[in-house]
């Protein structure tokens, strides 16, 4: 039964949606995590141990995520990389907290995802992104009137939007049009765009994932709108998503720690390997997962754990988390006890189909 009984194999569990409408995000995480693990094992593993990934589907459903978690515990999971989406993450962290095992969520951005000591995250949290976006726009862009399109049925989107709204007010920005949509109608945005156009907005803030953003940008383009768009890390992945029509995304600005076409060696190597193995360009989720695995490896090294059967393994790893520094794809990260990563968001603008850093 116990998968990790194979000598010195360190089992990392993964949980995320592999089916259902959020399946892309889970798949990205699974793929990139596997890629990182293969790399590490090729270089001899960590402290003499080989890493192994067991990734379970949760269909973006908390109940199924808890089932998946228990399956992984039965299999002998030592560290959890997950879950990918916020809602299941909030349910699973309750369990992992009771078991006291280290949980690192690559992309669960809701505040409560890491409310316990054993949980850490790679991505930014929602409020921070909301505030950061408002601050950035107020301080660096010459616009005052903002229109927003956000997903009312999604935690990530509403989470960012709410903080953005509060911060925007403080910074003297005026939100002239708030347009929502839900998972029941997330392909047609013609009405929302029309509403914004009539509101006189100078910039449209879209704290949504790139799949919806692709629809929004395409339809804005069709309607002949030329208002600039500003998004958060969920927007990363928009260029490959648009395919041949990438020019639509020209001028879109986003806050993101990761850019698949960044010129540094690390990113290029990752993107190349990912493309070779899975045939598509990695997105933010993939980058977070890749960093997540390297973070786990770093924590193992720091904690000096040499056997998966170490009786104090959990506490050692959790303690190690606040002591390590990881130079990842998404920036150089350190953690404090809150579990939030310390790293800088970068604002980029899409120019000629590529990210270009802004200040």
């Amino acid at each position, binding site marked *: 039964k116990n998968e990790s009984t194979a000598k010195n194999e360190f089992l990392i569990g993964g949980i995320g949606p*592999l089916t259902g409408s959020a399946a892309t995000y*889970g798949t990205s995480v699974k793929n990139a995590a596997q890629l990182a693990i293969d790399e590490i094992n090729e270089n001899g593993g960590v402290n003499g141990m080989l890493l192994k990934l067991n990734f379970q589907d949760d269909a973006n459903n908390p109940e199924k995520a808890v089932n998946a978690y228990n399956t992984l515990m039965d299999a002998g999971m030592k560290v959890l990389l997950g879950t990918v989406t916020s809602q299941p993450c909030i349910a699973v962290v309750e369990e992992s907290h009771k078991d006291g095992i280290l949980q690192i969520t690559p992309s669960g951005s809701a505040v409560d995802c890491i409310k316990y000591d054993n949980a850490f995250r790679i991505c930014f949290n929602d409020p921070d992104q909301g505030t950061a976006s408002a601050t950035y726009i107020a301080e660096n862009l010459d616009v005052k009137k903002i229109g927003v399109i956000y997903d009312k049925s999604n935690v990530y989107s509403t989470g960012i939007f709410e903080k953005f709204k509060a911060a925007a007010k403080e910074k003297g920005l005026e939100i002239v049009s708030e347009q929502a949509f839900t998972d029941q109608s997330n392909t047609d945005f013609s009405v929302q765009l029309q509403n914004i156009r009539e509101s006189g907005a100078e910039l449209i803030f879209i704290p949504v994932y790139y799949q919806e953003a692709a*629809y929004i940008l395409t339809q804005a383009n069709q309607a002949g709108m030329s208002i600039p768009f500003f998004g958060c890390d969920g927007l990363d992945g928009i260029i490959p*998503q648009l*395919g041949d*029509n990438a020019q639509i995304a020209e001028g879109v600005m986003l806050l993101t720690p990761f850019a698949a076409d960044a010129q540094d060696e690390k990113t290029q190597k990752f993107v190349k390997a990912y493309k070779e193995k899975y045939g598509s360009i990695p997105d933010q989720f993939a980058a977070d997962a890749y960093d997540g695995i390297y973070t786990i490896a770093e924590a193992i090294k720091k904690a000096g754990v040499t056997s998966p059967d170490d009786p104090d393994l959990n506490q050692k790893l959790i303690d190690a988390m606040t002591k390590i520094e990881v130079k990842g794809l998404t920036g150089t990260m350190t953690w404090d006890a809150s579990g939030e990563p310390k790293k800088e968001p970068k604002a980029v603008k899409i120019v000629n189909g590529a990210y270009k850093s802004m200040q």
Partner: protein
Amino acid sequence: MSFLSQLINGLSVGSIYALIALGYTMVYGIAKMLNFAHGDVIMVGAYTIFTAVSMLGLDYWIAIILSVVFCTVLGIVIEKIAYKPLRKASPLTVLITAIGVSYLLQNIVLLIYGSHQRPFPKIISVKSIKIGENLVISGEAFFTMVITIVIMIILTLFIKNSKTGRAMVAVSEDKGAAELMGINVNRIISITFAIGSGLAAIAGLFFASTYGFIGPYSGAMPGIKAFIAAVLGGIGSIPGAMLGGILLGVVEGLSKAYISTELSDAIVFSILIVILLFKPSGLLGKNVTEKV
């Protein structure tokens, strides 16, 4: 002006719903089954075109024909394997099997093409139509509307005037009696599925062209909306499906534009309920009261 253009937005969405609902109501009205997999056949149709054009580099026309043929065959095969053995079972059994088929199609596509959305090739490119200053009807929307109306007329004429069409109505009324007329009931139901699925391929083409992207789950929501449109228009009524689809799109658009984008879903569904309370068998449905 703004009202008119919002109305046009609603009409464009509505005509897509209507186009999907036509195929839905066809199967629904004649085979008397809720084919919950209809939305997924649409998705498969769009993927077929995507494969032919973006992956194999085939000509648009060939891709479209390929997609229609593929979906037609798919419809027939699904009917043979999953629905035909259930001719005598309760309609709910068939409904659940259809849900199984819907999951199956989604997961096959998921396995073959992966979970991420694919950009759909720009096949239909019609110039937007400008009326006056600010009023623009997108080319796709206009074309969709025209095609929907044409298909509606063809279907109505086909059912009313062709021999097969008459046989379809007979089958929908009483399978046993239809058999006694010498009608091959199984064949008629197969043809119904074939037509329904062929229409799904066309709907898939227009749906994907309008919105530009397809994923394994792209068919689910339009499928549900088309189901709603078909019921709203009156089960089995072809003009009803058209009317229901358009109305659904317009109500959705106008409530987003003038009431609330947050609550538009709730508003649309509430209006649906109210309409059905006043017209319990849909807008154009036959009000069959049981003779006592």
